[in-house]
């Protein structure tokens, strides 16, 4: 059973529907016991970092992710979920969960500091990922496969070895991060057609050591 953590941050039903479509049992829940007993945990989210953190804390779910990570069970972050596992977000300087060292950076500031002009924000639409090394969750993904992104901030881990894939949009930014039993995508696998469903399928069978 996969637990999709419900913390009132966007439409979790689409993640659930995608897992159901590939025949993987899942539930949307904010019940700490159910999340703790699930074999795998998905941490999705869209919207602003500040309100997401607030509602995680209100629901008492900020510790449950740390627990899941420490327990060694596979954890998948998606979109905003990928950003708030870092220590802070530049989005209104929001303190985040700190499960990975680093911060979520804004395209707007990064474009300014690197002299990139003429690109729309949010980064919305389909783009490729460049895998930095083989990862079981990305088995079978081809270089030309594209994934659906919609975001104005991106994850920026301190340790280069926690970047699993990068994407080009004016700058090169980390689009998949992770370590041990955690993998987190900035794009939406549930909205990325067949390659996205393949990633969810791989995650459902992933046994990190």
């Amino acid at each position, binding site marked *: 059973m996969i637990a999709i953590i419900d913390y009132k941050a*966007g*439409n979790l*039903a*689409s993640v659930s*529907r*995608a897992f159901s*479509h590939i025949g993987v049992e899942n539930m949307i829940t904010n019940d700490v016991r159910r999340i703790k007993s699930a074999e795998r945990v998905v941490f999705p989210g*869209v*919207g*602003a970092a500040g309100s997401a953190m607030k509602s995680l804390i209100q629901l008492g779910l900020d510790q449950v992710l740390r627990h899941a990570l420490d327990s060694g069970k596979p954890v998948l972050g998606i979109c905003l979920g990928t950003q708030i596992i870092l220590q802070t977000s530049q989005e209104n300087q929001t303190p985040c969960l700190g499960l990975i060292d680093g911060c979520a950076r804004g395209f707007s500031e990064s474009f300014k500091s690197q002299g990139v002009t003429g690109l*729309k*924000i*949010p*980064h*919305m*639409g*389909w*783009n*490729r990922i460049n895998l930095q090394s083989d990862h079981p969750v990305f088995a079978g993904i*081809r270089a*030309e*496969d*594209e994934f*659906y*992104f*919609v*975001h104005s901030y991106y994850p920026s881990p301190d340790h280069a070895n926690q970047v699993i894939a990068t994407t*080009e*949009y004016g700058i090169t930014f980390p689009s998949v991060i992770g370590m041990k039993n955690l993998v987190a995508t900035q794009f*939406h696998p*549930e*909205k*990325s*057609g*067949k*390659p*996205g*469903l393949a990633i969810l399928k791989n995650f459902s069978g992933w046994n990190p050591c």
Partner: protein
Amino acid sequence: MLSKRIIPCLDVREGRTTKGIKFKNNVDIGDPVQMALMYYEAGADEIVFYDITASHEKRDIMIDVVRKVAETIFIPFSVGGGIRTIDDMRDVLLAGAEKVSVNSAAVKNPEIISVGADAFGSQCMVLGMDVKHVGKNEKIPSGYEIVINGGRTYTGLDALAWALKGQELGAGEICLNSIDADGTKDGYELTLTELISTAVDIPVIASGGAGHPNHLHDVLTTGRADAALIASMVHYGTYTIAEIKTYLDERGVKVRPTGS
């Protein structure tokens, strides 16, 4: 590098897909769920549903369509038409749409954009703009005016000023439809599209007038659009999504391969 998006648009009336010219003479062309699946399989990057159901009582039929589509395809899709309140937005989003588009309701009450963006996030708020060329005058400095009610009512709003206002209020994207070009198959309104797309920082979907892959090429290059809406050129089998994407790819426009 970000791909340019190719987006089939399905006009849905009481649960069936229709196609008319300049919002008139609608004919039934199929089941929206089956058509969405076909375009998903064919490599569409996103799908837009435009609900032209006349009465509010029949909105439930559309919600049912949205729910079925969400269980069938795994790419983003948006729903526009008849979205008047936050509750309308919530119904559509909970049924599984990625985005909602507001058009007339935003003209009448611009705050609906900011309230929607606060409640659901800018990423799911699309500002739909129906635009007519009226010539430059004091009230309409860009020469393009916002119209509503399928082009029958002039609003006195300048299209450029309205696009900037929509962005400021929190729209995450603009779907820019030229009423003059809609249904003509003579090509998109390039001047209008370039004007709006270069003025705002959010993505712009060009709409109205697509008849040949060359039209998409022009609006995605000269017109500076981020995405192109298509309807009759694919609905009647004149072109496939793959043919359009191959045409664009061969001419240097980055698109998502249809094989994936």
